């Protein structure tokens, strides 16, 4: 392994942070697409030079960008995200029905095997796929065709499909705020809710089949059946591809949060960033602490060395954490204050890679050959 490339999406552009295997000295490139919101940048596991970026703003809508040279040059590709058929309606915050309307791409997940195949999770919630490098997009409409779709309602950030978690050639999980987790076992043709075991007190039926505000999912590629979840409140775990869930919040100072990820080599090591509450989107006690469990949940330890431990009131959004595949594993956290912190030793020690970017919306990392 020669190094890493951290892909950072912010409120005002994208940034690429590159380093060698030591991960102590960094080159910073950017802003790319200056002035635009970059919800997500992600790279192909098959071809690390192939990157996709979701570029949008309120004036000009959605642009999809692709790079074939590791981010040196970019090309705008297809931005036609038209829902299949009559899009129907979903619920609004006040309980009224409103038509499905495309807003933006939240998440891009390139295929593990084909650089030209990439999935896009969008708001209003739907899943699209391109098999031609982003030139054209088709909705996997079996998801939005689920019987419950007309009852889906937005979370505070909108009705967004924010997590795409491929499990194998036919299985995939997606997460929607605030509908919950949905699973397919036939390559995206049909979908079922995968929320058994979730409990959300804000819902009229706290254990309903859909309606949960799931914030993020993560799984280790070599143990895909074990899935970790940061929910609105509660950190959860599934050992059966999301068929059932149990709480693993354990001794966390708060089980509210957004980001969650799994160590690059140890499937039982999980990271979260506790946030005070849904009304106070900053770390408890003004201390930015990443929490690590080495036991697959329940028992957590704070990681603080190099992170601000006073007067810190930033947030870490749902896509704000990533891990690399180096040994030891690197962990990266981006904040709404514009800092990207990196740890080259699994979270034991941290230092800021950059301090003053626009608010960070997403962090991904590529381990380069």
């Amino acid at each position, binding site marked *: 392994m020669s190094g890493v490339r951290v892909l950072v999406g912010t409120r005002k552009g994208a940034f690429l942070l590159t380093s060698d295997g030591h991960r102590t000295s960094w080159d910073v490139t950017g802003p790319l697409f200056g*002035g635009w919101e970059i919800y997500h940048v992600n790279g192909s596991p098959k071809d690390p030079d192939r990157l996709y970026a979701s570029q949008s703003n309120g004036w*000009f*809508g959605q642009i999809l960008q692709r790079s074939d040279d590791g981010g040196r040059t970019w090309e705008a590709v297809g931005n036609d995200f038209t829902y299949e058929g009559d899009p129907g309606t979903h619920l609004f915050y006040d309980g009224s029905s409103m038509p499905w309307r495309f807003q933006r791409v939240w998440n891009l997940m390139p295929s593990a095997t084909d650089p030209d195949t990439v999935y896009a999770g969008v708001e209003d919630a739907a899943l699209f796929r391109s098999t031609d490098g982003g030139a054209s997009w088709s909705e996997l409409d079996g998801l939005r065709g689920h019987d419950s779709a007309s009852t889906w309602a937005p979370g505070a950030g909108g009705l967004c499909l924010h997590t795409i978690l491929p499990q194998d050639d036919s299985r995939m999980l997606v997460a929607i705020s605030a509908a919950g987790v949905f699973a397919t076992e036939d390559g995206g043709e049909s979908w079922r809710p995968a929320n058994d075991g979730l409990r959300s007190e804000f819902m009229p039926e706290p254990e309903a089949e859909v309606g949960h505000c799931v914030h993020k999912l993560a799984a280790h590629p070599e143990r895909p059946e074990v899935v970790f979840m940061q929910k609105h409140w509660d950190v959860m775990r599934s050992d059966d591809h999301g068929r059932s869930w149990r709480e693993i919040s354990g001794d966390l100072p708060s089980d509210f949060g957004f980001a969650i990820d799994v160590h690059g080599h140890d499937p039982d090591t999980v990271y979260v960033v506790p946030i005070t509450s849904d009304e106070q989107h900053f770390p408890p006690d003004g201390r930015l602490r990443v929490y690590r469990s080495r036991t697959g949940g329940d028992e957590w330890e704070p990681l603080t060395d190099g992170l601000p431990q006073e007067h810190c009131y930033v947030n870490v959004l749902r896509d704000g954490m990533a891990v690399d595949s180096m040994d030891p594993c690197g962990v990266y956290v981006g904040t709404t204050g514009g800092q990207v912190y990196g740890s080259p030793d699994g979270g034991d020690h941290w230092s800021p890679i950059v301090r003053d970017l626009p608010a960070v919306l997403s962090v991904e990392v590529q381990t380069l050959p």
Partner: protein
Amino acid sequence: MSAQPAPDAAAVPVRVAIPQQLRTLAGVASSEVVVQAATPLTVRSCLDALETTHPTLVGTVRDRGTGRRRPMIRIYADGEDLSDEPPDTPLPARVTDGAEPLRLVGAIAGG
């Protein structure tokens, strides 16, 4: 001969002023582009021509699904606000004769 001429059968050059972020997206350096638009010149014919010449701008000025002006884009011609006029309204003479550009303006908003 078809009942209506092909759009480019009577195309004429028209100046279109576009915001900075669209210039970057279209890969043009100047604040104006010149496109060949079908006559009679209207907002619709000019935007059709703009999108044909610069396909990366499709969806950025008009909603792809509805064809309507995006809410935070305003359209001006020779001092007139055409934003809410029917898109087939003929453009003022000073735009059709090249003295003024059709102006696409991003609303002042945001932080």
